[in-house]
């Protein structure tokens, strides 16, 4: 398709999306919805094509001509793994059939358990431990570098108080009402400040991203118009 045609289509679709500004009005509202439907539909179609071409097709080609194998079907171990995956895939496909859906449970359990295991291992080694170490790390020159000292203190206080905000332990008074000590309440309030600040920062940066994308689209409209 010619580049000009693509640009024209992009221009029209951009205007259709911008029609959302006018609200859910007759005809106008449908322009936005139509643009979204086109986007979703084409995304789904592309996903299906790419999944077929890049995952399924190589194996089919290898099966037809094992001599030109370049996928994981290089040796018997890989073939066994492939067949196991194929079996699991077929079992997962049984889910829509009511009378055979029970066959899916085993395969689904394996998928869920492996996913959970990977998430736990990755979470520990990739998130929890590095973040704890980074939080507890004392930078060089802490005593002389005021900025480093300030940052370290902020990180430490913010982490501790934010964690403290989510603890709900309290003793009960004579009437059975939960009572927290003034220290606990104070720490929780400080933690609340850090949390609100963090959420505010996330909201602000999200808005900045939205503005960036909007500016790019508006620029495209004017560029096309000129």
């Amino acid at each position, binding site marked *: 398709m010619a580049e000009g045609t693509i640009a024209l289509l992009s221009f029209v679709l951009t205007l259709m999306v*911008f029609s959302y*500004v006018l*609200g*859910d*009005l*007759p005809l106008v*509202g*449908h322009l936005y919805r*139509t643009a979204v439907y086109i986007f979703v539909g084409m*995304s789904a179609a*592309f*996903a299906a*094509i*790419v*999944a*077929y*071409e*890049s*995952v399924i*097709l*190589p194996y089919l080609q290898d099966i037809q001509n094992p001599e*030109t194998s370049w*996928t*994981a079907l290089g040796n018997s171990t*890989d073939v066994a793994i492939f067949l196991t995956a194929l079996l699991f895939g077929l079992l997962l496909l049984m889910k829509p059939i009511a*009378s*055979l859906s029970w066959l899916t449970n085993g395969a689904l359990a394996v998928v869920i358990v*492996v*996913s959970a295991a*990977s*998430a736990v291992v*990755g*979470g520990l*080694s*990739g*998130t929890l431990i*590095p*973040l704890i*170490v*980074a939080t507890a790390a004392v*930078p*060089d*020159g802490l005593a*002389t*570098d005021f900025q*480093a000292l300030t940052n370290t203190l902020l990180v430490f206080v913010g982490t501790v108080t934010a964690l403290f905000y989510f603890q709900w332990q309290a003793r009960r008074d004579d009437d059975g009402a939960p009572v927290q000590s003034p220290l606990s309440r104070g720490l929780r309030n400080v933690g609340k400040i850090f949390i609100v600040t963090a959420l505010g920062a*996330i909201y602000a*940066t999200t*808005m*900045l*991203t939205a*503005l*960036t*994308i909007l*500016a*790019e689209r*508006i*620029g495209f409209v*004017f*560029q096309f118009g000129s």
Partner: protein
Amino acid sequence: MNDDDFNWLPQEEEQEAAQQSRRGLFRFLPRFRRGRGGAAASAPSEESSLSGRRGLFRLIPRFLRRARSAPTEATAADLALEMGERPVEQLDDRLLALRERAQSRPEQETVSPREALYDVDDVLVRPEIIHRPGGVISPLALSKAQQEQVELLRDMVGGTALPDDSQSEGGLLSRGKRLFSLGAIPHLLVSILMLLALALPFVATGFSEGELPPLAFHEDRHGTTTAFNMLDNLTLDDYVLLAFEYGPTAAGELDELADVILRHIFAQGSKAIIVSSNPITIVHARNVIAAIERSVAPVSTRLVENQDYYLLRFLSGGALGLRDLSRNFGSIVNTSARGMPTGLGFTSLDEMTLMVLIAERAEDVRHWAEQVATETDSDFIAATGYAAQPLAEPYVYAHEDIVGMFIGVRDAYTYNQILQANYADYELPPRREDPGTGDGESAPTPSPTPTATATATPTATPTPTATETPQPQATPTPTATPTEPEPELVQLAVAPAATATQIPSPVAEVIAQGPVNIRRRPNTASDILALAATGDIFPVLGENGDGSWINILLPDGIEAWIASFLVEQYIAPADGTGGGAPDGSARAGDGQTVLQFDFSLRLGKTRPRFYQANPPAQGDRAEFVLLRDGRQEEQRLDAMTLGTIAAVLVIVAGNVFYMMRALTRRRRASQGN
């Protein structure tokens, strides 16, 4: 136990099913049917029903078969009911005390959910639930359970009852009425104001509020300069794993970053291996590369898939797919997105010179940090948008392997400015007559003197490295052959003996086993500016307070720091016997002795380039950098600034408006009372 709840088939049907089980797919059907035969279905005895089973069912242990044959409605409560109550006398003291305490408490009245949450009206804003008719597709449909939950929620927050569908407004007429609804006016005004603010910089001049991004990454940015330098240190032999984890929805923000990073990679002749866990992103990456190709088409040869870049098959399974990538890189890298062999023979991620992640969501950064970065020793660079920055940045600080991060279009602007300055001395090859047919036959002739005029470095050079320095002389090799010359690694000329000043001065010689890091500031969290090898000697400018870091001068005039335990300090002789700066000039500052700097140092794999804002080498494809279309960059940045100002104004005005309205209502209410 109710026989109706017992789901086994009666004996006759059981036998019939057993007959059928010998044929075809019937054998896979479960042997039981719920409610089949209605109440008349009688339950066979457990053993008799199971004894008729054949095949795999016999392999099930007996206790499991018994458990399976139990009625599905049996619960722990049913069992408890059957057990009967224990006499009070048999309770021990603790249970008796608990019982008495419970009996002594006043009986609580049953309260409605709304009464239980008595203060919810003060906390929650009552939502106005609009029942809109459907458009192109059918309207929102709720199940009965969902409708009950909606009603409960509505009751809790004090909403009004949902009107019947028969009474709901529908059709074009009612929707047309909303066109004139006063409530829509603020929404419309805000939208128009925002669009106007964002559009002004594109249609008129003089709306440049704020400042453009800096021409160099700020030194306080954690690892950003290091990340740029790593990309700048790539060579012809290097492969970069480029993870595209953003789709068309974030293209407006991240395409700029992807564009400059890809151009930087292509300009140095390195290869980009593009991978993603999202199939749509693979398609989008192809579009980004196509746009780069179009921009350089008049002068440059085309990029060739599976030669200049590789699009790998998408990684299915989300985080599991990433784990698969890190463990089975060899098999994944073999298949392209089109299902064809790539010809790449890598076996491990460690063979990648660098990994760059361009991610839309912080979740993607987390997945890559957890599943990939921890599994490889290759250096890792992240690039995200503003929305993902707050949650992605901690990973850059915490992970040793994640060296730095680029954020949004502002960093893309700075990145491009550095590249443009570095490549400013290049002359583009002549424009091709037919850009659409060239596949190397009209390759650009390399600039005859790519670095000979380095003294005319533009003043806007963002990094202090290339300025003022006569660039390393690469012998120009103009060629008349139509084919593109084989790019050669440029060996930076190292003068064997630089001009040495006559003033003895302290120097620091690296005694640790190299390479050792030379940093911008005296702490290990600071950016790495260069690497030094054992025996390298640098002029000493001073040291920090406790003497743990030595302030040294790099050959190109940059002040840097090296840990004191890695070096030995002494006074250099006045006739200095060392080498010199890469340009052969003594530029170590007045009164300093430049002795030696071994430029075989490198951060990455093979290229003997100075690890700081490299001057482009001969063979670099400058057109990929110089022909970038950045016409609207500054207008976009101005639009972002104006849009931010407008958004803040709208938020402030809205809050003031609602505050004033609330005060007015409160005053009216008090007057009414």
